[in-house]
């Protein structure tokens, strides 16, 4: 038994979906890196919003609008404190990580010129590659890639060599979605700053598992998705240092983001509203705050400890299966196991696991460059959360072995 002081049985009761059966088997949900499940505490907040105080925010003089505005801004404060941003207005509430990345990529268009360089890591999600390729096309800047090693770690020595005074921006994920590698972002940020480059960290896969401190990291931009942090879909955060957010032009035009509109000239609202055009995802924002309360109620350190033990246990169990290879064996990982069995297509394994009620992801995980690096079409990815158990890891290993026997 894993001894970390968490009452997992009690925690599981917070997630009614975990009681479901799939194809006649009890659901084993191991696709947490794609989206996490939502505890009833968060669902209750969503229901409460729509049953008691649904209203548009920041404008209304009536009571409901005031209440909704207060709740929404209170949620922003929770996000700010969780990520230890210096100011609440450095937190832009977005629709998710992809939105945050595109907002920054779009804003940088005018800041770059041909000859400038931007750098991404070799293990990015497509959402942290394509917007930068588009930015390079618009601005004439060149895209450079920080290479990775067989273990699935970034080649930091080569990163240091690639950085130069022409480097204007560096983009890297905190945790790789395909491999689970925790990247040394402190060093990445520090080295980039020495060359005068700004850094955006995609924290989507890190935020559910570890605490990121914006001030301590001294990061320029950090972006996450609420739905991977036990909140709803369609909400996320972009943290930006005040000086950068002041400099960046607005991303979208519309209501909420203006101070004054005349046909001759419009002046924009202050931070963060400059970047929050239109009616935001009010309920999503409030529920995101509730999700942050929920994980802090369990404790990020306890979560990290428990998940590390679970990763260790599941890794050992899976490695007992003949011909099974794990991709991504970095020293520092979150609870993600990306694997293949010799000679078997990941899709076949995923299909049979689904028949046994086990939800995993198969394919390239929106990280084709990582799959190309290993020369494989994809992997089976089991990604764990604090509500998963050793017993589920056992069942996963048994099911994978059963699938192997059927497919061999």
């Amino acid at each position, binding site marked *: 038994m894993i001894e970390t002081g968490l009452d997992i049985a009690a925690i599981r009761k917070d997630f009614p979906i975990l009681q479901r059966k799939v*194809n006649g088997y009890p659901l084993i949900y191991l696709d947490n890196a794609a989206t996490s499940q939502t505890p009833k505490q968060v669902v209750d907040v969503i229901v409460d919003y729509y049953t008691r105080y649904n209203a548009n925010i920041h404008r209304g003089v009536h009571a409901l609008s005031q209440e909704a505005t207060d709740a929404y801004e209170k949620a922003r404060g929770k996000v700010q404190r969780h990520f230890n941003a210096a100011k609440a207005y450095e937190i832009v509430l977005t629709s998710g990580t992809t939105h945050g990345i595109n907002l920054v990529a779009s804003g940088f268009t005018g800041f770059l010129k041909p000859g400038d360089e931007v750098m991404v890591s070799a293990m990015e999600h497509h959402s942290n590659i394509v917007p930068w390729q588009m930015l390079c096309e618009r601005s004439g800047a060149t895209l450079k890639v920080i290479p990775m090693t067989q273990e699935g770690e970034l080649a930091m020595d080569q990163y240091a060599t690639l950085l130069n005074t022409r480097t204007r921006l560096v983009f890297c994920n905190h945790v790789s979605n395909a491999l689970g590698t925790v990247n040394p972002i402190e060093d990445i940020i520090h080295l980039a700053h020495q060359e005068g480059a700004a850094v955006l960290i995609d924290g989507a896969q890190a935020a559910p598992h570890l605490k990121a401190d914006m001030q301590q990291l001294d990061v320029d931009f950090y972006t996450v998705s609420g739905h991977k942090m036990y909140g709803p879909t369609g909400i996320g955060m972009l943290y930006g240092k005040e000086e950068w957010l002041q400099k960046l032009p607005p991303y979208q035009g519309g209501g909420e983001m203006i101070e004054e509109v005349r046909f001759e000239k419009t002046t924009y609202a202050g931070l963060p509203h400059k970047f929050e055009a239109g009616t935001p995802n009010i309920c999503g924002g409030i529920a995101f705050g509730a999700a942050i309360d929920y994980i802090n109620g369990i404790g990020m350190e306890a979560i990290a400890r428990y998940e590390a033990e679970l990763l260790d246990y599941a890794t050992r169990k899976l490695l007992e299966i003949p011909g099974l290879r794990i991709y991504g064996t970095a020293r520092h990982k979150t609870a993600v196991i990306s694997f293949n069995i010799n000679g*078997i*297509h*990941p*899709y*076949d394994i995923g*299909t*049979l696991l*689904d*028949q046994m009620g086990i939800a995993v992801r*198969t*394919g390239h995980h929106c990280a084709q460059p990582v799959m190309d690096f290993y020369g494989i*079409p*994809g992997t089976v990815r089991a990604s764990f959360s604090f509500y998963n158990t050793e017993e589920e890891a056992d069942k996963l290993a048994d099911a994978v072995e059963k699938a192997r026997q*059927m*497919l061999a």
Partner: protein
Amino acid sequence: MTIQEIQQEIVDEFSMFDDWMQRYEYMIELGKSLPLIDDKYKDEDHIVKGCQSKVWVHAELKDDRLVFTADSDAIITKGIIAILVRAFSDQRPADIIEADTAFIDEIGLKEHLSPTRANGLVNMIKQLKLYAVAYQTQLN
């Protein structure tokens, strides 16, 4: 046999199984009997788009009938395309175009019809029907 008769035959075969394992094991078996596509056709032109695994399909007109060959790099997908090839191969293009595919539901492969299934069974059916349309035009 007509397409409908073959489909009924497949449905009858699958109705003998009472759990998913037997169904999938049989599907894997069927994959082994798939008339394989010539290696020279395993190219971009013959690939079925929208699948997580690779699926290649080739069609050839023999007299007035369309003959399919195919392959996949995944075993279950190979079983699925084998079922489709068995149902549609050696038939007149006009009949293939008209053919119903409800039998897929009946053999318990419904989940593969969902648009979220990266292995688009839907795309495979579409591809077979597209071949039929192309050759039908040629026959006219």
